[in-house]
């Protein structure tokens, strides 16, 4: 008899404890307070607006492709497919690109030479930082010392040598080619790089960054290695 009472009390207490814990969880939930001021909100708004316009242009692009497919369906679907394939290859960095852009030259700094310091290779961190700066201002096609940067390009230190796409970057001087969509973008990028702190970061490493004037024609070489694709798989038809 008493044992049964205990078991019932235990079950009831289990439920009560669970309810209390859930209530506790709910009440203790930290309220995330909005502490942004009006300028931060404005900035976020403008970022979202930019995203919006980018998405709209993407949609337009895709729509154009669809119309193209529809128009060519009767004539030559292969042609349309080839066009798309070519666009995708260009986006992936598998083709040589000639477009407006600019050329950066990385050299040992004059001060370093005068003081007789040895020229060291550029560090991967610095290179990544520079790439991020370039990417922020629509430098879409980039090659470092002739090595084309694609989505999966690794920049890292291998046995003390900085490599891009697993190929060693030579000790400075070497050049970085940047292709942009329009000459206007190239100018923007030029001004941005001129005004950014990135040159100071180079100077710390006894290097100097020479930023070339925007040019109408810059030829960025293609990515010439095998693309490794370990995770994407073809789906079976109809999926």
């Amino acid at each position: 008899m008493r044992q049964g009472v205990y078991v019932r009390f235990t079950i009831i207490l289990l439920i009560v404890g669970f309810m209390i814990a859930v209530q506790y969880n709910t009440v203790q939930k930290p309220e995330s307070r909005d502490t942004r001021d009006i300028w931060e909100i404005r900035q976020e708004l403008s970022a979202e607006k930019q995203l919006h316009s980018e998405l709209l242009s993407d949609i337009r692009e895709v729509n154009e492709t669809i119309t193209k497919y529809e128009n060519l369906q009767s004539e030559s679907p292969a042609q349309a497919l080839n066009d798309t394939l070519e666009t995708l290859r260009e986006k992936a960095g598998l083709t040589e690109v000639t477009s407006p852009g600019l050329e950066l030259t990385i050299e040992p700094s004059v001060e370093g030479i005068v003081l007789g310091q040895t020229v060291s290779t550029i560090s991967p961190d610095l290179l990544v930082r520079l790439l991020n700066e370039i990417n922020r201002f629509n430098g879409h096609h980039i090659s470092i010392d002739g090595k084309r940067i694609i989505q999966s390009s690794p920049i890292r230190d291998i046995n003390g040598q900085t490599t891009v796409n697993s190929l060693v970057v030579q000790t400075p001087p070497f050049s970085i080619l940047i292709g942009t969509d329009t000459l206007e973008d190239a100018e923007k990028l030029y001004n941005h790089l001129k005004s950014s702190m990135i040159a100071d970061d180079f100077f710390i490493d006894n290097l100097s960054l020479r930023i070339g004037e925007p040019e109408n024609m810059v030829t960025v070489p293609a990515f010439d290695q095998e693309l490794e694709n370990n995770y994407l798989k073809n789906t079976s038809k109809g999926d």
Partner: protein
Amino acid sequence: MWLPLLGLILGISLGLLTDIEIPSVYENYLSIAVLAALDTLFGGVRAQLQHVYDDKVFVTGFFFNIALAAGLAFLGVHLGVDLYLAAIFAFGVRLFQNIAVIRRIILTKWSERKGTIG
């Protein structure tokens, strides 16, 4: 004796570990349900100590009180009357009464035992 306590700890840790949160709209209902559950629980303990405990009364009382309290709160929200206050009041008063009775019974038992020993 320790079995119910174990149940309580198990229940609390289960609730905390699963990290369940209910929408804040239903927070009121849960709080009142917790109150009803506590009321029934202490009622059960008191009944046990007074030797009038009955399984059916206890178990049905537990679930019925919770449902009634939540239902009353629900009705109150829809009628625009704060009916859940009635439930809180009723359960609160009963909770205090039950705990007072439990305290007295335990005190009496304790002093009796002390008397027999001494």
